[in-house]
């Protein structure tokens, strides 16, 4: 199998108000074509940041990144936009459909940013993608007229329409109830079965099980499952201690009163 994504010692530092945040601190990650990878970890550990680097939404502070055999860590914004358009499909937690465009127009959107795609071809491919997610009967609807699950399915169609090398999803079920969430997961599984590479961020261990492989992120680094478990327990313990101390302090204050 060919290596689709190859990240070596990727770092990302944010500077905000003279505070340095090391969101990613040396990530090594490879994803093969056709793989289904789930990324999980506690809140604020850097999952979304990692996904945005994989998806070329942002450039790393340091490290090397080869996508489909091409070095992409140092290219300019326009080149990144072109590669993004061709190689990456995004699915967001909040669906991110454009309210002023109807379903069909939303799905056609990535193709409008691609050269040499005629209007009729655009329409044809959008319809095809909508059929794959089972939304072909709602093409004239606006996002506000759809349920959350339907909106996410349209978003999946939009991610698929450009036939990208990889689908990136950041908590695709986060805004959905469990029934709709499961339906979306089933849809992704089906796509994966059809050969699509998927990289998904999720909190939910049930959904992570859909994936071939799980990657755990902790404090901006990838760790294995046991380490994660251990780190988590330590953290919980620390939290409990803190709560206990706070309680004790409160009680003494109450006593004094």
């Amino acid at each position, binding site marked *: 199998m060919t290596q689709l994504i190859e990240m070596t010692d990727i770092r990302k530092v944010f500077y905000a108000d003279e505070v340095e945040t090391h969101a990613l601190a040396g990530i090594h990650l490879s994803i093969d074509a056709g793989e289904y990878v789930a990324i999980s970890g506690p809140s604020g550990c850097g999952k979304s940041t990692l996904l*945005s680097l994989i998806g070329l939404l942002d450039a790393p502070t340091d490290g090397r990144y080869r996508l489909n055999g091409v070095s992409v860590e140092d290219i300019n914004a326009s080149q990144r*936009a072109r590669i993004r358009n*061709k190689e990456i499909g995004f699915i*967001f937690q909040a669906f991110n459909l*454009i309210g002023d465009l109807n379903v069909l127009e939303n799905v056609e959107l990535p193709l409008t*940013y691609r050269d040499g795609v005629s209007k009729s071809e655009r329409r044809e491919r959008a319809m095809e993608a909508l059929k794959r997610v089972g939304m072909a009967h709602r093409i004239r609807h606006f996002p506000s007229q759809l349920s959350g699950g339907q909106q996410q399915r349209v978003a999946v169609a939009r991610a698929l329409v450009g036939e990208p090398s990889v689908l990136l999803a*950041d908590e695709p079920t986060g805004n959905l109830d469990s029934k709709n969430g499961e339906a979306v997961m089933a849809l992704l599984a089906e796509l994966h079965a059809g050969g699509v590479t998927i990289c998904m961020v999720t909190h939910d261990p049930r959904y992570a099980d859909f994936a071939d492989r799980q990657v755990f992120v902790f404090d901006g680094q990838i760790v294995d499952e046991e380490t994660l478990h251990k780190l988590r327990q330590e953290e919980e313990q620390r939290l409990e201690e803190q709560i206990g101390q706070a309680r004790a302090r409160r009680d003494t204050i109450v006593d004094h009163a």
Partner: protein
Amino acid sequence: MNVPPLIRDALRPLLRRKVVSGLIVVMLALGVGVNTGIFSIFHQVLLEKLPIAQAEQLHALASPGPRQGANSADGTGDDLFVFSYSMWQDLKAIDAPHQGLAGFRNFGANVGFDGQTTSVSGSFVTPNYFEVMDLAPALGRLFRPGEYTEAGEGATVVLAYDHWRREFGADPDVVGRTLIVNGRAMEIIGVAPREFVGVNRFDPTDIFVPITMVSELANMSWRIEPRDNYWIYLIMRLSPEVAPEQIAAILEPRYRTILRERDAPLLNEVSDSWRARFLARGLELHPIGVGMSNVGDVGRTPLTLLLTVTGLVLLVACVNIANLLLAMAISDRGETAVRMALGAGRRKIMLRQLLQLGFLALLGALACVPVAMATLHVVLSLIPDSVSSPLSASLDWRVLATGIGVSLGAMLLAGAAPLLQALGSRPVAAIREQAGRSGGSRFSSRLRSTLVTGQIALALTLLVISGLFIQSLFNVARVDLGMNIDQVVTFSISPARNGYPAERSAMLFAELEQRLDELPGVESATISSVPLLTYNNWGNNVSVEGFEASSDTDTRSNLNVVGPRFFQTLSIPLMAGRSFTEQDTEGRSKVAIVNRAFAEKFDMGDAVIGKRMARATGSGVELDIEIVGLVADARYSTIKDDPPPQFFVPSGQTRGLGGAVFYARTPGDPEALMRAIPPLVAEFDPNLPVENLTTLKRVSRETIIIERLMGTLATLFAALATLLAAAGLFGVLNFSMAQRSNELGLRAALGASPTALKRMMLRHALVLAVTGIVVGTALALLLGRVSAGLLYGISPFEPLISVSAAVILLAVVLVAGWLPARKAASVQPVQALRYE
């Protein structure tokens, strides 16, 4: 300070957003200020009442239709407003329910007092004039009804208050003293009340004299006796309960009877149809509560148009303000919803908004005063002193009150949309908004776009209009006058007003012309009876050898009495024959020179020289003048009208000119020559005032005042509107850019390149611009129709101007759209992950 909490609460958001609030106030001040400035002129010229009691009761009489004899009108009103003295007496004698009928006529007077002679404005008035005006003297007495009935009776003067203050230092002992008016000793009997300067405010009267003195004081054809001498303006004060139509209905049949019985028998040689029209002349009453002057008639259309233009500027400003308020309301939306959720009623919300609008309106009204003053000064500096001096450069309280009213109205207009937006916000909306649904403000973003489209349309309209006026001004300035007006100094003198007899005047003219010609620095000098390019006309019916005329043929030609070097001084080419010489004097055979238009009108063909003509018509008229020269056509009374048929006669063969105009061409500095004129004239008579000393160039500039006024102001206002519209567009794009930054980030995530995003924003701007331009072109057509009468040499629909305006606007739109578009291009795609 203890501010009520309601007000404090309402004003806090304004104080928090100082820049936006400041912008609103500035734009309101600009919009309202230019309107107030123009309205101040509009008010003074067209609306301000005469300073007399119940001015609205005053009406001028008019009688349209043909007349014979001498007809003389001035800037007070058209031909149809003048009547004979006898007709005044006849009409006054008719028993009808009105409060009096008076007559007046303004004239130029040279006034001597204590050995000083000045040139002033006089007014011949009927003795009942002041009674009809319902005025009481400020000093002494005024003329009384019933006195001075015979011609030559009443060598008395009433001074205008201002003149009395200015020239006599408000000396109370002036009554009883002697004033020399046009060479005649007159007794000062009183002073008219403050502010009253006669009925024609644009020819303010300095001295009032009885109309019976006309033959002694005016070297004109004006006479008391002849029934066919039409020269007096008649004004009637109506009774409060009587409508003008009622009075006209009573007077008209009696008027026609008078025409039939007394005037018709005096007519000579007319066709039956002409006589019928003469006898059918009607009598109209025109309200003149605001005074009588053709400045009002001439100014009405341009001033109305200017007010429309400034109104559009205000509208553009209002749209900007509306957009800013809307943006404010939108960013306050959450807060408003929370207030509502906490139980604030609609009325409270509305009151709060109204307080904000009122506060901004008040500040805007205050700030508009300097803008209005500046506008007023610009306008006054553009129009000649003769028109502007009666106008006040300060703002009337009524005008200011109007400004404040407009300011409030504008704020309410601009505030309507945000008000609805605030009232329409429901408590639940606040929660829904946060749920991350896009498209919540689709209505308001559409509204903002529509408003900007409207602004662009208005700006285009104004650009087109200003283009038309600039082109028109350009056309007028470029007119081939048929003469060279550069480097020519002009002035006039009126020795007859100083009591010179005709013989002495003629001698003075000839000698002064000679001395002027010999003055160092003068190339050539001449005399002319008609001041050129000042709307003055002098005409005669003529007979021309070989031209058959029936009694209804138009045989009028304009006439000018000129010196030997007239054509040379003004560079009017001689095409055939000869010019006048010093030898063309009284004793020699009478000669004339005609222009080409004259030769054409009277079918003279090629053989012009040697033909004979006469300054009279009718069978058996002796053709006593020989035509000795043919000159090229040159403009006469105006720049805009084609050269009329003209004939010229030599000053050496003309007696009885009471005054004359002089022209002197200099190769040097005209200003230097102008300084040499008063001493030269003083050498002849130190008491002879030099009038209208200026350059011919300046004279010509003053005749195109409307073009210059409209050209300058329309451009100024169009530029202002364009600037405001650009600011508005920038604001809207910037706001929508901020509102859409998430969407833009998403598009970037999906692969839109920075260029694609930039293009998208610019396309948005262009769509607004093109829509606005289409609508604006239609609007411009409408407004162009209105201004058609003011345009010269250009049609109100000029594709080139529309296209230029569109190009200018597109350029402005692109500039205004560039910054927001660049910002759009730099949106970070990673924002898509945080899209909520």
